[in-house]
């Protein structure tokens, strides 16, 4: 939002740079896939086969990538002016299997609605907002 002011081109609040959305989507898919691997492969291996290695690696990886997810999700939800409740759900979605996919779809739709097909989007992206 500060970037909009610094470009000084009268960018309205609808326009959120596509890269804010893209990096959220990348992190949503990453954490979601890792969490599915963790819950549906790692934990059965640990519990039933006594092999904790997958849990150790994927668990820590998911833990730290979830921090990154939190950060980019906070950035996107605030720029899209998502109300507090849904924002918290989006943040928590990274910890429940499959929920990050739902959150990603929902936020992408919301992004498309808010950005619209306005030509401003392309202009803003080029100015490096």
């Amino acid at each position, binding site marked *: 939002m500060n970037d909009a002011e610094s470009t000084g081109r009268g960018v309205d609040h609808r326009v959120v740079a596509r890269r804010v959305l893209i990096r959220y989507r990348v992190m949503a898919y990453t954490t979601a896939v890792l969490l599915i691997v963790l819950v549906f492969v790692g934990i059965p291996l640990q519990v039933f086969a006594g092999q904790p290695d997958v849990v150790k690696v994927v668990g820590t990886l998911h833990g730290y990538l979830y921090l990154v997810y939190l950060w980019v999700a906070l950035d996107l939800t605030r720029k899209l002016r998502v109300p*507090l409740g849904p924002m918290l759900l989006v943040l928590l979605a990274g910890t429940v299997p499959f929920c990050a996919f739902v959150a990603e779809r929902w936020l992408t739709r919301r992004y498309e609605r808010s950005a619209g097909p306005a030509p401003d989007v392309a202009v803003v992206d080029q100015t490096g907002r």
Partner: protein
Amino acid sequence: MTAPTRRLPVDRRWTSRRALLCHAVLVVWVPGCTLATWWQVNIARSGDSLGWIYSVMWPCFAVFATVLWWNLIHDDPDTVGARGLRRLQQQAEATPHEDEAAPDDAIARAEAEDAELADYNAYLAELRRGPDSKTWRRR
């Protein structure tokens, strides 16, 4: 440009219902993270080195929550949430492209604010008009 921001008076910003809720959550969350950190440090000290990794992660969660809390406290009530988004969209549609005006307007506006700049621009204009002009010292 950007929507005019309306800040709540400081006392209401910190004591609105929503703010109090945020304080309450933070007051529970940060000590919770501290406990979790301590728990992981103990695990790590008792031999499972994986605990060290998690004992760094929990403070990060506490920091994140604090940043989120600060952001929420300082929200502009006119621009937050779905209603704020709608309002901003209406504003943007009502005042389309104000700064795609001719660049001359921008110069004129800047000159109006800065007499020195106006003088300098007049000087440049005189220079540009060429050597025939003998009046460039007298504005």
